[in-house]
């Protein structure tokens, strides 16, 4: 350790703190969130085994559900079960990503590094928005893999690229809402091991009581109603519609207005959960 006197050291000044105007504050929040997104992506690059894990789960979903269950499942109207299933698998993968989000936030919150972040003149929200940003990028990667898998097992989009892109957009919007749910969970249960135990019993019934595997009209009436109003179902139904995949129908209001709900549910969830998560984060270790 040398003790050379450094003459060009930038000095810590108040100007490096976010300025007080709301617009500039927002700009700094975006910049800091992007820097934190980069940090989280570097984590992924530095632990390649995680990348394998990212992709093995969705691929497994397609193969297991498409071939094992798919042989015995019926689709309303005429159509292949695998083509019915794929949009559901897309959405289910988004849901299960919630566990990774929650445990990674819990890991961050439990470590000393969060003290450093809190002592820096950065936007307070950046640790959380950086997580959301990185998880959206991860979701985009997972979706790409799923689309390739889907094409290999015979799934197609049939309404043109524009509608397909809109469907992907809706799926990512739902993922964003689920990310914020994961962030809140990770902050409430700040123990990474506990988090992953909690997520499965939460996620599993949510997929079972939806239109991911079975069309709601094939369920008993009361179950079908729950399934139709499930936020997951809205996104799945809207995606099936936009991709031109089979399995539409049911006469319920929720099924008729799937597109509206596919936008409304996630926006509502984000509007409620994101402020709660930020509040919770600011109250950590007080």
């Amino acid at each position, binding site marked *: *350790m*040398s*003790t*050379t*006197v*450094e003459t060009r*050291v*930038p*000095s*810590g*000044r*108040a*100007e*490096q*703190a*976010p300025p007080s105007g709301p617009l500039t504050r927002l700009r*700094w929040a975006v*910049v*800091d969130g992007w*820097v*934190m997104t980069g*940090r989280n992506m*570097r*984590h992924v690059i*530095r*632990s390649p085994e995680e990348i394998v894990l990212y992709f093995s789960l969705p691929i497994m979903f397609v193969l297991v559900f498409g071939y094992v269950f798919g042989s015995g499942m019926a689709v309303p109207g005429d159509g292949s079960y695998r083509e019915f299933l794929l949009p559901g698998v897309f959405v289910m993968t988004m849901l299960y990503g919630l566990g990774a989000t929650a445990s990674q936030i819990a890991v961050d919150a439990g*470590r*000393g*590094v*969060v*003290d*450093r*972040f*809190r*002592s*820096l*003149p*950065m936007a307070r929200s*950046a640790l959380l928005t950086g997580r959301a940003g990185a998880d959206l990028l991860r979701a985009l990667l997972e979706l790409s893999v799923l689309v390739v898998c889907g094409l290999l097992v015979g799934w197609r989009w049939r309404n043109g690229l524009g509608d397909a892109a809109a469907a992907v957009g809706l799926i990512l919007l739902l993922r964003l809402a689920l990310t914020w749910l994961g962030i809140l969970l990770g902050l409430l249960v700040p123990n990474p091991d506990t988090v992953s135990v909690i997520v499965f019993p939460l996620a599993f019934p949510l997929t079972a009581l939806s239109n991911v595997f079975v069309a709601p009209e094939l369920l008993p009436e009361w179950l079908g109603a729950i399934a139709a109003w499930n936020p997951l179902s809205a996104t799945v139904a809207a995606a099936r519609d936009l991709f031109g995949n089979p399995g539409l129908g049911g006469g319920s209001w929720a099924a008729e207005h799937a597109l509206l709900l596919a936008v409304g549910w996630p926006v509502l969830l984000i509007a409620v959960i994101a402020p709660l998560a930020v509040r919770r984060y600011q109250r950590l*270790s*007080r």
Partner: protein
Amino acid sequence: MTDETSAVVARGVRKTYGRTAALDGFDLTVPPGTVCGLLGPNGAGKTTAVRVLATLLRFDAGHARVAGHDVTRHPERVRAAIGLTGQYAAVDETLSGRQNLVLFGRLRHLPSRTVRRRADELLDQFGLTDAAGRSAGTYSGGMRRRLDLAASLITRPQVLFLDEPTTGLDPRSRNGLWDAVRTLVADGTTVLLTTQYLEEADQLADRVSVVDAGRVVAEGTSAELKARSGADRIELVVRHAGQLPTAAALVERITGGTVRVDREIRQLSAPVADRITALAELLRALQDAGIAVEDVVLRRPTLDEAFLHLTGDRSGRAGTEVAA
């Protein structure tokens, strides 16, 4: 020194957890460009004080200013002016050493070219260049602590908080860290250091504040604190253990103080007021009594003793005290 020109000011700061007060009327003034040592037993409130001043913790009453900014009203201005190196190295364990420094530099909103240059300088300065590409998680304790300090120095902080910075470090790493702190102070940085090592406070701090039960119970230079904790002591070692009682009686008659006897090392010690006179008289008396003396020293109290004196001796070290 007014509150406006001080680098760190705390006035009557109170922080309670439930019914326990971690800080209970905490007062502190640190002039710019100096090192202030916060010394106190575990649980005295040193770390809480640092976390309050570094904007990590809200407090219930009182007020605090750091680098001229109010901690409650303008925390982000305080954050831009401070560096914090805590008890546990606050670095990202997955990222490499260089990636850590670049990340923290970018979060300080420095241009990316400046950040990269500064990261390389710091890696070099702290002897981490060879390990720059490795995950911080693979670093040794000493390397991690160095990286943690480097992360606090990407911009030169006006005020640097060091919370037990050398706990668990080997002597070489500790000396290196002390050198780095001295260099910073020479360049005008103010340092607030908490430590359990009295030697560390003695080595680095211009002034020491002794913290106990959430407030500062004594404040001064380490020499002043030592002086306040009582008189100098005379210590002597006799050759034959059998002569200890006779020698102790003589020491007590001449110094008039309570004599401490350590049979293991055949040592007697007692507080002494008129140092040289007492020493001469004592040596004469011992010689007359035919007691062989192996070693005699006059010494000022250690900061250790000052510390125990000021915070109340709760460690039960008085066990060796024997009335002669």
